[in-house]
C-alpha cells in the first residue's frame, strides 16, 4: 500500500509534519527525534526553557538550519529532499517573526514591510509603499511610521513592524519566535491579539515558540513542550496549566522544585 493511500486512509494530511528530527552542535544534542504534526489552519505553541532548542526546531522546519536526521514535510511534500528552488518556493509561503524583530536597519520601515513583495517582483516600489502602509495599519501603526528607521521605534513598535513584514505577502504559514519577549505584559497581550487576528484573517497555519505561558494560551490551539531535545508532552493549549505531566506543570507554574532540574555551571 503506497504512503499516499495510507495517509488518505489515516485522515487529513498535516500542513507541517516533522518526523525524527535530530540536530547536534558539536557534542551537544539539541533536538533528539522530534515528531510534530500541525494541522491546517491551527496554531501550535511549543514551550520550553531557555536553550531547550525551540529556536533550532523552528529554524530546522524553515530550512535555515540543516538537521542531522529526520524529515520535514509541508503539505505532504518533503522539504529537505527537495531541490533548492522548491525549498525557496515553500519558504516563500512562510512568514516568520524573529525573536528580536530582525528588521533591516539600513532600510526604512516601509521597505522592511514590503521587502518580500519587492523581492518576489510582485509589486512596483510605489505599490509596495502603499501596500506597506495598508499592512502597517493592520498592526495598528500609522502610515507615517513607514518613513522612519527601525532604530527610531520602541520595542513594541518594532515587534509590530516585524509582524507586518511577516504577514505582508499573505503567507499560508506563520512562524513566531518568542513574539512577546522583552515586552511589558500589556504590549505582550496586544502583540498576541494581533497575531491571533492575523492568523485568523489569513487562515494561516501557525507555529509559535515561547516560554510566556499567558502568550502560549492566547495564541495556541495546540501546545507541545520541549525538554532536553524531546517533545515530552502534546495536547490542547487550554490544558497547559493542568496537563497532568509533572514536568509541564512545573514549567507552566514556574515551580523551582520538580522533575526539571536547572543545569548550573560552576
Amino acid at each position, binding site marked *: 500500500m503506497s504512503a499516499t493511500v495510507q495517509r488518505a486512509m489515516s485522515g487529513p494530511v498535516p500542513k507541517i509534519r516533522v518526523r525524527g528530527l535530530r540536530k547536534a552542535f558539536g557534542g551537544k544534542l539539541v533536538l533528539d527525534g522530534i515528531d510534530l504534526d500541525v494541522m491546517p489552519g491551527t496554531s501550535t505553541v511549543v514551550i520550553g526553557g531557555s536553550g531547550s532548542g525551540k529556536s533550532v526546531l523552528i*529554524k530546522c522546519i*524553515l*530550512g*535555515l538550519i540543516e538537521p542531522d536526521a529526520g524529515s520535514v514535510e509541508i503539505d505532504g511534500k518533503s522539504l529537505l529532499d527537495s531541490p533548492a528552488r522548491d525549498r*525557496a518556493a515553500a*519558504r*516563500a509561503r*512562510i*512568514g*516568520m517573526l*524573529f*525573536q*528580536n524583530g*530582525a*528588521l*533591516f*536597519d*539600513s532600510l526604512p520601515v516601509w521597505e522592511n514591510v514590503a*521587502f*518580500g513583495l519587492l*523581492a*518576489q517582483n510582485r509589486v512596483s516600489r510605489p505599490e509596495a509603499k502603499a501596500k506597506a502602509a495598508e499592512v502597517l495599519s493592520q498592526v495598528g501603526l500609522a502610515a507615517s511610521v513607514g518613513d522612519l528607521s527601525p532604530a527610531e521605534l520602541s520595542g513594541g513598535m518594532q515587534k509590530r513592524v516585524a509582524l507586518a*513584514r511577516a504577514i505582508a*505577502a499573505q503567507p499560508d504559514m506563520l512562524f513566531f519566535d518568542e513574539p512577546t519577549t522583552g515586552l511589558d505584559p500589556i504590549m505582550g497581550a496586544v502583540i498576541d491579539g494581533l497575531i491571533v487576528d492575523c492568523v485568523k484573517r489569513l487562515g494561516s497555519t501557525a507555529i509559535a515558540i515561547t516560554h510566556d505561558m499567558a502568550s502560549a494560551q492566547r495564541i495556541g490551539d495546540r501546545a507541545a513542550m520541549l525538554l532536553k531535545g524531546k517533545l515530552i508532552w502534546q495536547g490542547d493549549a487550554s490544558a497547559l496549566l493542568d496537563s497532568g505531566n509533572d514536568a509541564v506543570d512545573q514549567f507552566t507554574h514556574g515551580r523551582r522544585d520538580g522533575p526539571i532540574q536547572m543545569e548550573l555551571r560552576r
Partner: protein
Amino acid sequence: MLLDLVAALGRVLLGACQSAGSLALFALAGLSHVLRPPYYPRLVLAAVAEMGFFSLPVVALTAIFTGMVLALQASTALSRFSAESASASLVVLSVTRELGPVLAGLMVAGRVGAATAAELGTMRVTDQIDALSTLSTVPMKYLVAPRLLAGIIALPLLVVVADILGVLGGFIIATLKLGFNGPTYIVATLNHLETADVTLGLVKAAVFGFLIALMGCYHGYNSKGGAQGVGAATTMAVVTASVLILAFDYVLSELFFVR
C-alpha cells in the same frame, strides 16, 4: 611528546586547509551570484559609492604624501649616483606599479573591509541574514555579490586618482623644493610611463578590491557570538585583507612585470 607536537601541528594544518577551502567555496559562490540574475544594480552603486567615493579623501591624502616623500627619497638616493634626473621616472613607475594600488588597497581595507565585516556580522548575530532567507532573497546574492562587484569596480577608479595625485605630490616637491624644471619633469614622467604600467596597476587594484570585499563579507557573514564575535570578524577582515593584498601584490608583480 613528539607525537603530541606532530598532532598539534597536524591540527593547525588541517584547520588552515579547512579555512582556505571554506573561503574558496565562499568566493566561488559569491562570484557565481555576481553572474546570475537577479541583479541588484542599486546595491552595487551604493557599494561603489561607499568603497570609492567616500574613500577618496583618505586615499588622496595617502597618495599625495607618498608621492612627495618618494620624490625626496628618490632625489637623495639617486644623487649618490649623479642620476637625479631619473627621479621623475622613479616616482611615476613606483606610484603606478606599486604604491598606488597597494596603499589605496590598504587604506580601503581598513575603512571599508572593517565596515563591511561589522555590518554583515551584526546582521548575522541579529538574525537579519536569516530574515532575508525567509523573504525570498538569497543572502549571498543580496549582501555579498554586489559588494564583490563593487570592489572590482571601485578600487581601480580610486587608484587612477591615487596615481595622478601621487605623481602630482612628486611634482610639487621636485619643482618647489628640489629645483627641477616643471615642464622637463612632466616630459620625463610621460616619456618613461608606458600604458602597461598603468593598466597592470589597475589590474592589481581590481584584484585587491575583490580581496577586500571578499574578506569583509566572509568574516562578517560567518561571524558568531554576539558583539565579541563581530569585533573579531572586523579585525580578521582587515588583517587578512591587508596580508593578502601584500601577498597578491608580489604574485601579480611576478606574473606581469618580471617575466
